[in-house]
């Protein structure tokens, strides 16, 4: 099939998704899709992603479409340069089909915090698709695109992947360049991949990966090859961290994990209970570190350099900054900027930020000790519940933050992890999370490929 034909079919699916009210896209057009296809059809050797249409979260910069981060403050902003990940995916033959809706500046767990309206869950429009990369997850789950880019700061790909029943992979920190990813929490941010299958996501990740001189935190190691799925899990020791299986786990999630454990055992792996005691503090640690970094990173949106500008009543420069930011940022972004500024302010820095950085080291140390003891991978639920109803948590920020309770610690430790669909509870997908040691992304994907073949992702549990 030519790229031109793929682009036409992708355009029809995008239009149908928009017409159905999914609200998962922020920018796309058939002429741009056709131009992408003409570029790929003219490539002499298009590469590993020849004519694969991808959706891209709207916080990854592209030069042919706006990049708004789903925020009024960046409405209409078009980047003068392209993200390294996008440049590499295009060089591999991928078609950038659409920019996907998201929680504003990637702050949220439900994609209800978009300035351009909430994204609907593809299986139940009254529920959320997860977040913050909810638009990308919904587009893959709805079959609009086979794969998509999201970004993770504290679980923003694995959590929506779990809610939507697709694969979501967060690479090791430093494996994929952050150049061109709009900064939120720079010590946490990772461009990550969604796929209908582990192999789809692995191909996207492989094409994006590798050292980039434009991002000083990428490791100077070669790009990740696409790993072959293992035939089984024999010889692997898989740890079950007891803190991730609390007694009040949603019964559907608990049943799906019980069935997954049985499949893992049938595939020949040894299951071992382990302890990650400091993971209990992952969410509070995250909600100090990430807002602190966000408060610094989002200082650049002041009405002078980017996007929208409002002139305040006093008419001076501070009034311009304050009015632009006060009207341009939505409530969740404002809350996080205020929390971040508070925890970094004189008198509170040691009590909150320094303390959180120390606890972060303890959380990472727990993982290191588990892997050093001979554990090859860890297995946990991705989320404590299946997708929740829209509006259920919007008035309670802490309740919303707790939706990320099983995914935050991995982000704080910089490890590779993925969410794999492992069953349905009352029709809603349930995801299992696999976690690997730092830079063992290939081991993670190869093992997930074996599990994917054997687990009944679409079968009801209970």
């Amino acid at each position, binding site marked *: 099939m030519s790229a031109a034909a793929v682009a036409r079919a992708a355009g029809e699916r995008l239009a149908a998704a928009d017409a159905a009210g999914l609200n998962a896209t922020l920018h796309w057009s058939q002429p741009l899709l056709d131009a992408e296809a003409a570029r790929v059809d003219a490539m002499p050797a298009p590469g590993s992603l020849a004519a694969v249409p991808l959706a891209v979260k709207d916080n990854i910069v592209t030069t042919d479409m706006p990049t708004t981060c789903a925020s009024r403050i960046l409405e209409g902003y078009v980047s003068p340069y392209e993200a390294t990940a996008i440049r590499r995916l295009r060089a591999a033959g991928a078609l950038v089909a659409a920019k996907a809706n998201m929680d504003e500046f990637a702050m949220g767990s439900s994609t209800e915090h978009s300035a351009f309206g909430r994204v609907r869950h593809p299986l139940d429009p009254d529920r959320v698709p997860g977040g913050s990369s909810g638009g990308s997850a919904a587009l893959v789950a709805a079959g609009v695109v086979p794969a998509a880019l999201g970004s993770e700061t504290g679980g923003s790909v694995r959590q929506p992947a779990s809610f939507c029943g697709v694969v979501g992979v967060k690479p090791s920190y430093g494996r994929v360049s952050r150049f061109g990813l709009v900064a939120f929490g720079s010590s*946490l941010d990772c461009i990550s991949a969604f796929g209908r299958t582990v192999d789809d996501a692995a191909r996207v990740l492989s094409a994006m990966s590798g050292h980039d001189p434009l991002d*000083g935190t990428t490791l100077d190691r070669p790009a990740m090859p696409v790993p072959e799925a293992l035939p089984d899990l024999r010889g692997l020791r898989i740890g079950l961290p007891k803190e991730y299986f609390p007694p009040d786990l949603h019964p559907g999630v608990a049943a799906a994990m019980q069935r997954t454990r049985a499949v893992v055992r049938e595939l020949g792996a040894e299951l071992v209970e382990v302890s990650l005691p400091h993971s209990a503090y992952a969410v509070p640690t995250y909600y100090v570190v990430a807002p602190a970094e966000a408060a610094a990173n989002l200082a650049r949106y002041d009405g002078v350099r980017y996007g929208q500008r409002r002139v305040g009543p006093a008419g001076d420069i501070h009034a311009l900054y304050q*009015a632009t930011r006060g009207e341009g940022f939505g409530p969740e972004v404002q809350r996080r900027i205020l929390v971040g500024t508070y925890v970094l302010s004189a008198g509170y820095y040691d009590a909150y930020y*320094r303390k959180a950085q120390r606890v972060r*080291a303890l959380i990472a140390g727990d993982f290191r000790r588990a892997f050093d003891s001979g554990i090859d991978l860890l297995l946990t639920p991705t989320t404590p519940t299946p997708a929740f109803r829209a509006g259920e948590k919007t008035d309670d920020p802490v309740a919303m933050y707790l939706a990320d309770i099983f995914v935050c610690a991995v982000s704080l430790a910089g490890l590779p992890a993925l969410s794999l669909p492992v069953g349905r509870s009352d029709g809603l997908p349930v995801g299992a999370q696999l976690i690997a040691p730092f830079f063992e992304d290939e081991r993670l994907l190869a093992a997930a490929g074996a599990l994917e073949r054997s687990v009944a992702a679409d079968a009801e549990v209970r």
Partner: protein
Amino acid sequence: MSIGRDEVVHVARLAELAVHDADLDRLVEQLNRIVDYVAQLDRVPGDGAGELFLPGPREVALREDVPGPVPLTRPPGELAPEFADGFFLVPRHGAMEEP
């Protein structure tokens, strides 16, 4: 620890954020809830002298501190209509005249 209205106004000023009076009570309540929640970090044992976290291996965070050229995304010649011998060529605005 509890955050009052004055503190929220002060932090908003530090963050260059205009906060409307009508939103203040809600913000005070939500920020207190968040700060109370993260305060549980005080329960983590330790004397506060532990190591701070660096993302990734130390080779990334603590590489040689040697300044070098910063690679540009595009060569400078693409940033202006005319570029020669390491200089951007601009239209002549006028000439210095002898008094």
